[in-house]
């Protein structure tokens, strides 16, 4: 028996040796193949899609409109033109000659289906709150859709670029087939998918955008661990690797890889205004006086002002609407004084909930804890994996750290999270002036007036707001041969334009 074992072991070793050489080679074909190492998706059906593995859905589906990454303007996609005279009734014209991957035609009925689906109570559509404003949808002909909104919304079409608003086929059963056989009109068709492991997409020969996609195949690997993804990139097994952190960026840039930063992500620290201790604005201010943005930037391995940004409003620094209010600066004595005034002369204890596996979550929360300690704040960190955090603890804690993606139009975020009745009002803010300003912003057509409201809103947040806004970079690393990688702030990677030049 020992002999048999030895022989078997030798055979296996021989087999391995033979394959060591073969492991790294690619198939010798003339196809242009883009390989990406991304995260492991949870659910991928649009509507309930958690936003992991952005390239999968962005390649399979199209949207009514997209964003130009350079200018931030709306670009026609499945919708060719749109207008509204009063901001409340929107007429949208659709593109002709578009087909879904199964050959069926794209028409106005599909748009109606996609939007009405957001209101399905059994689905839990993530954009349900955004589209609650739609009262009625008319489809006068195959290529026209008319939306009747409950209120004036000048920025209505921006809603169509949200990542869960992929246009779906009204004739397809997404409940049953959405996870395994997605059906869209996009530049790539899903050919094979091994759940949680990999996806193989091939060029959509009938794609409506002539000449695109440039690549023949898109191969996406679902890799749970970012270090493994980076090592795959370094070993030449993939071409693109998104969601790297600053340390990876430094290492990879030094090795000659290209690193781009398509947009910033928010990390909001929500100070819940509906319960102790942050129901008292003095306590909120005390916390803000404890913060040192430079240290926060450093723990993210970045520099304040170039990689990481900080302010106390929900508006990104890079946006046009941003008002540059000078930072208040760290003042522990002031913080202590405020706490004493609020009735906490000996400090207080508060729990901070966050997603432990979300980038920068660990670093930021520990830094915040350390920074607030000298003033008397004893912060108890409660970290959970993102799915558990979002389903059980978010929106229900005295202090939260949540990652938000940018909304192309900041008023969308304001309506979602900073109106007192907003569905995702995680900080439970209930301020009449804030509500009023947000309502005015969303209804105002005149740019200059709108900016005035934005300015005043940011001042109010500085005085008595419930949020600390830390903007962290989103990096994508790729081989220098990868050209024309586009990823607007909608998150949707536009792989139809990307090609590789060896």
């Amino acid at each position, binding site marked *: 028996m020992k002999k048999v*074992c030895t022989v078997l072991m030798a055979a296996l070793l021989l087999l391995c040796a033979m394959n060591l050489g073969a492991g790294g080679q690619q198939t010798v074909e003339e196809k242009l193949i883009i390989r990406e190492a991304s995260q492991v998706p949870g659910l991928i059906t649009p509507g309930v899609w958690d936003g992991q593995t952005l390239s999968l859905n962005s390649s399979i589906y199209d949207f009514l409109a997209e964003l130009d990454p350079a200018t931030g303007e709306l670009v026609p996609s499945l919708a060719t033109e749109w207008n509204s005279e009063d901001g409340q009734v929107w007429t949208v014209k659709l593109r002709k000659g578009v087909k879904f991957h199964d050959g069926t035609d794209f028409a106005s009925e599909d748009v109606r289906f996609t939007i009405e689906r957001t209101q399905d*109570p059994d689905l839990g559509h993530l954009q349900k709150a955004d589209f609650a404003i739609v009262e009625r949808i008319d489809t006068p002909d195959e290529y026209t859709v008319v939306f009747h909104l409950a209120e004036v919304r000048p920025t209505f079409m921006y809603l169509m670029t949200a990542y869960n608003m992929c246009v779906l086929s009204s004739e397809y059963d997404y409940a049953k087939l959405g996870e395994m056989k997605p059906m869209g009109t996009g530049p790539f068709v899903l050919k*094979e998918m091994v759940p949680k492991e990999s996806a193989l997409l091939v060029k959509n020969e009938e794609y409506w955008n002539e000449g695109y996609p440039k690549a023949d195949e898109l191969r996406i690997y679902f890799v749970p*661990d970012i270090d493994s993804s980076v090592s795959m990139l370094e070993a030449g097994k993939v071409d693109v690797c998104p969601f790297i952190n600053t340390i990876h960026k430094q290492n990879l840039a030094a090795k000659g890889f290209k690193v781009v930063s398509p947009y910033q992500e928010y990390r909001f620290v929500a100070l819940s205004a509906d319960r102790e201790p942050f129901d008292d604005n003095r306590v909120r201010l005390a916390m803000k006086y404890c913060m040192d943005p430079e240290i926060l930037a450093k723990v993210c391995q970045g520099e304040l002002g170039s990689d990481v940004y900080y302010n106390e409003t929900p508006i990104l620094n890079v946006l046009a609407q941003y008002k540059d209010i000078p930072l208040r600066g760290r003042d522990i004595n002031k913080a202590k004084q405020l706490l004493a005034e609020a009735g906490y002369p000996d400090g207080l204890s508060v729990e901070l909930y966050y997603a432990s596996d979300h980038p920068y979550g660990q670093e930021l929360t520990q830094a915040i804890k350390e920074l607030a300690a000298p003033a008397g704040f004893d912060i108890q960190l409660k970290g959970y*994996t993102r799915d558990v955090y979002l389903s059980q603890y*978010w*929106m229900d804690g005295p202090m939260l750290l949540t990652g938000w993606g940018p909304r192309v139009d900041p008023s969308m975020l304001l309506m979602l999270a900073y109106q007192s009745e907003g569905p995702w009002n995680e900080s439970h803010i209930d301020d009449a002036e804030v509500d009023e300003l947000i309502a005015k912003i969303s209804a105002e057509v005149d740019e200059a007036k709108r900016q005035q409201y934005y300015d005043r809103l940011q001042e109010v947040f500085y005085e008595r707001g419930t949020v600390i806004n830390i903007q962290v970079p989103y990096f994508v690393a790729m081989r220098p041969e990868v050209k024309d990688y586009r990823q607007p702030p909608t998150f949707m990677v536009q792989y139809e334009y990307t090609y590789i030049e060896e």
Partner: protein
Amino acid sequence: MSFLRKVLQRLGFMIITLVAMSLLIFFLVEIMPGDVAQMVLGQSVTPEALKALRESMGLNDPFYLRYLRWFTGLLRGDLGESLYMRGVQISMILWRKVFHSVILALAALLFYVPLSIFFGVLAGVRSGKLSDSVISFFGLATMALPEFVSGVLLITLFSVVLKALPITSVIPIGESIWGNLDILILPAFSVTIVMFGYVSRMQRSSMIQVMSSDYIRAAELKGLPRAYVIFRHALKNALLPTITIIGMNMGWLFGGLIVVETLFGYPGLGSLTMTAIKTRDVPLIEACVLFITFIFVVSTFITDLLYGLLNPRIRFSGAEQ
């Protein structure tokens, strides 16, 4: 005859074990906070939507009804659909991961069994000498390292410093595992490091015991060459306890390698189980745990069988050891 009866009895116990296990897991997941509906819909959902989803998933039915529904499905050979990933057949996900786990387990077995037995025999035969001390210490040291420690050290050595082996066990799209066997090497090696200590030490001590037994002494006195004595007489008996240990660890080998899988990103049963537990995906949890139990029960059975075959004294005595 009594042998056959024993076999049937064992089979009966196996089935009872599996059923009891399925019930236990169902119960444990019941008392876990959070359910799959909440996982799917998230926090900001209305209670009505949650209720509706639970209704459509059949989660509002009482415990025994849900269990019976799942159980009868199982008897028909239908593992059901994942609750979290609606519409995805569990059998599709499960068997692929199982296949990967099986290959990794076989690779690990192929590495560690001959290696450990060989060195265990060597240490036992040269008991008290330098080689014994070296092997014993090595065995003890490796036994004490948790898988991830030895795994991290292996990665550092082979992937980072030597750049000889891949850090991650990812199979390129369109290829199968057979063209990528190099991804098995590091994980199998990590497992080997863990098992080497156990098995070689057990082999060593049983070897020592056997070598000092009367009939071995008699064989030596008869003038038979030492190597012959070791391989033909002593080894067979000395292998028995070792086989027991190897058999006992099969369950772990086939389904418990969570740490190794996490470290190397290997797409196996362990990480699938973890994901299932996190998302409270009851049918998937059941499928995974049952499979692991099944392997364990079957391997225990086979081990006992082998033990009985190799050691005729046990076979006919019918006594439980």
